[in-house]
């Protein structure tokens, strides 16, 4: 609860903090693995028992600009890691582990079949996580071109699959994908 006196100065301070970009590195922050395998940090005087790592540019710059945030629905940014490469190997691995789960996206390595039927397209593909069969809506924008050759596919339940480079597929496979190219 607030103090009886309304503190405008306090609010302004909060706003200012919100506007500041807080860079985190291993000099000012300690990155710790919790007992349950989560990421925890200690920066300045504050400890955060569990934090999230979020990519700002998940498609175009996945290893730079990582936002470290508090958990929960009112998640707030604690600070930003500018470049994963500047971190020590252990720390980078710890954060990478969090990111990998967060951005879990099987990579499609081969296409067995794609059928277009009555408003849905049925994919049977090989991924780096094994064979996957899923269906997408034809009506929406479930196949997104991240670049000329990179494709992100979102299934009916919003599971994601990625084709990092269409040109790496065989000609027959590309033909099956033809409708979406």
């Amino acid at each position: 609860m607030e103090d009886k006196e309304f503190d405008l100065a306090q609010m302004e301070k909060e706003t200012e903090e919100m506007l500041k970009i807080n860079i985190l590195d291993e000099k000012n922050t300690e990155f710790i693995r919790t007992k349950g395998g989560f990421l925890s940090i200690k920066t300045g005087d504050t400890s955060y028992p569990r934090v999230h790592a979020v990519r700002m540019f998940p498609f175009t710059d996945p290893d730079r600009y990582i936002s470290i945030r508090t958990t929960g629905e009112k998640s707030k940014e604690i600070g930003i890691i500018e470049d994963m490469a500047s971190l020590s190997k252990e720390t980078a691995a710890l954060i990478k582990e969090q990111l990998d789960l967060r951005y879990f996206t099987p990579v499609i390595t081969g296409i067995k079949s794609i059928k277009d039927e009555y408003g849905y397209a049925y994919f049977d593909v090989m991924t780096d996580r094994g064979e996957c069969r899923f269906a997408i809506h034809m009506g929406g924008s479930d196949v997104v071109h991240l670049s000329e050759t990179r494709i992100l596919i979102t299934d009916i339940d919003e599971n994601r699959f990625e084709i990092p480079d269409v040109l790496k597929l065989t000609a027959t496979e590309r033909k099956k994908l033809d409708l979406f190219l």
Partner: protein
Amino acid sequence: MEIKDIKPEEKKEILLPAALKKIVAELGGEKEEVLAFSPTDMNENGAYTDGYLVLTAGGLYTFASESEGKRVHSFKGFLNLKDREKNLERDWKCTRIDAGELKKLTIEPQVACGVLIAEFSDGVEKTVAVFSNLYRKEVHVLQRAFDRNFGEKPEEGKEEEGKEGKRPGPGGPGGHGGPGGPGGDKDEEIYCPKCGMMYPNPDRKVCPRCMDRKSVFIRTFGYFKPYRGLMILMFMIYVAVAGLNLVWPYLNGRVLYDYILEKNNDFLLSVGIKNGDFILALLMVILTMFAARFTVQILTVIQGVFTARIVSGVVRDIKKSIFETMGKLSISFFKNRQTGGLMTRVLRDAERVTGFFIDGFPYIFIHSFTLIATLVMMFSINWKMSLCAVILLPGAFVFSFIMRPKMWTAFGHRHRAERTLNSRVNDNLTGARVVKAFGQEAREEERFRSVNVRLKDSEMSIVGVWNFIYFTFNFTYSIATTLIWILGVYLILVEKKMEFGVLVTFIGYVDQLNGPMNFASHIIRWWSDSMNAAQRMFEIIDAVPEIREDDDPVSMEKPKGEIELRNVTFGYEINRPVLKDISLKIPAGSMLGIVGRSGAGKTTLVNLISRMYDPQEGSILLDGIDIKHISFRDLRRNVAMVSQETYIFMGTIEENIAYANPKATKAEIIRAAKLASAHEFILRMPDGYNTVVGSSGRELSGGERQRISIARAILANPKILILDEATASVDTETERAIQAAINYLVKDRTTISIAHRLSTLRDADFLCVLDNGEITEKGTHKELEELHGTYYKLMELQTKALALKE
């Protein structure tokens, strides 16, 4: 088949599959009541592997499969009920977490999967399950079951009534079980009874696997039923034309060359002409030939008129039924689709659907008729030459059949390109102001150009494929003709077994063959195009609105206007609740003010009251009756909303104000406009109330539009008035005027008003503060002020901001 056998009466009991039950029993949980269970499909390393979660009154059991990600992972649309049952029989690694050790279960949604995290009583947090979005609903149900049974805040105990599934089942409101595990009554509904596959869209119980294109065809054919008479007439014309066409080569070849020019007297006698009068015979042949051609022409014209009548009628009917379904669909349907795509469907697809039925379907009979008749004639004249003519045909047919999928893809391509183009144009025109303001015309042109080129390319590829087919047919035809000429000339000159006229007639018949062959090459294209469009069309027509009227709705002529929300939980996606367990009672005739930061769920809350969406849990009652049971007509008539998105339709101001009540008198319209402070600015326009506004008419400012929507709501005269930031874009002075009008308006009405500006809510009887989907503060102005909470903070902030301004 435990999962399936559940009966509505056993609604409370959740039946655990036997394989899991056994393991739970082994771990000592035999007597514990099962609260929920859910499959999972991933592990922490991001590998796909089977798993289960079982929540009982005693604790949480996690099942993990020993083997990792070797199997095929099937998502919705592929998932099979039988496979799922089979999957239960295997070696499970099962752990039990005692309910006493568990403090909290939270789901953390990731970008494309979810993690269930348990907090233990010693404060340690651990991941207990990872699952793809396929199972997020089920895990979510389990997590909520945990909250209900072990959660920290057992609020207002009585939640019996509200705890139904998302929708009342066919058995009525009291029917089906709680939000149980994956089993329960819903299973049969989400799996196709024929093949056991999970419906890609549970709201549209059509299994794309089990429905084939034939039925698309038959359904489309249904639209032609009202035109049966005309169709039969047309069919008769086709037959007549085909018959007349057969006469032509005969007259032109055999009769002309072999009988008349060869001066065959027997022939003259057989048609009853005086011996030797070849001039008359010639004249008659020419006349008959002319008459045949002329009749064909006339019939073609008549057929053209019929075609136009049928096509335009059917296109109109199809458009109408698409538009009608679209109107019935819930808001969420439109949120998921591009406007451009929907426009293509209404405008273009309807025409494409009919294409095949008019240009293709009737001709199938005609051309088969022509083909058979011609072949009979040909073979009766000379079988050797006939064989030459047809020997290549089967090859061409097989070839075009092979090309069919290619055509299908090409049409799908074009549809997508067209849709993108439409969306781009729509986007650009709507955002014209922004484009101009930032001087981005050139870039927009470039963006447009690229999609435009794509459309062109896709059209080209259709033409390309088709040309290929066309070429093959033509080539076959040319070869056949050449062969016949060679053979014919050989027969006439060398073997002297044939007369010249017979050859001419024969060539004429080969020409006749050209029609059906050409048609066969076209038909592939028409069929693909038409069925492709029809399929998209039925996708819309079959869509079942998420919000449906009760089968036997309660009519409510004059409600008192008391609104009650009971434990309402709602999210646009099930795992991201926007409103959490909201309970609220608004007495009839009072005014409730809702404040809260943007994204707190205020608009969502009022959307639920007007039933744009249905809550996932809990219920909303109007005068004690669940709004799900109230007829749409009565509910919408009694609830009017002035929202932050004002929309002005094409038409006059008068029509816009009278939108909800077209029978309103002029005096009533003027009164409503006056109350909404719109009267003055309307009169400043040269055409007054007859000014045409909307997309093609006069531009209105944000404040003006808002005032017109307020007038619209006033005229609707609802028992419940919802003002969602209704005065956000008017200046303070006008707001005061509208405020006065609203004060007048709220009399005898239940009003819910959402506002950022607290001054708007001055007259509210009581207020509530919504934060993150929960009501954090509730009470009168005075109570909230004394609470020194968020409301107080906001108030101070706004008075200080005002003080700065002045």
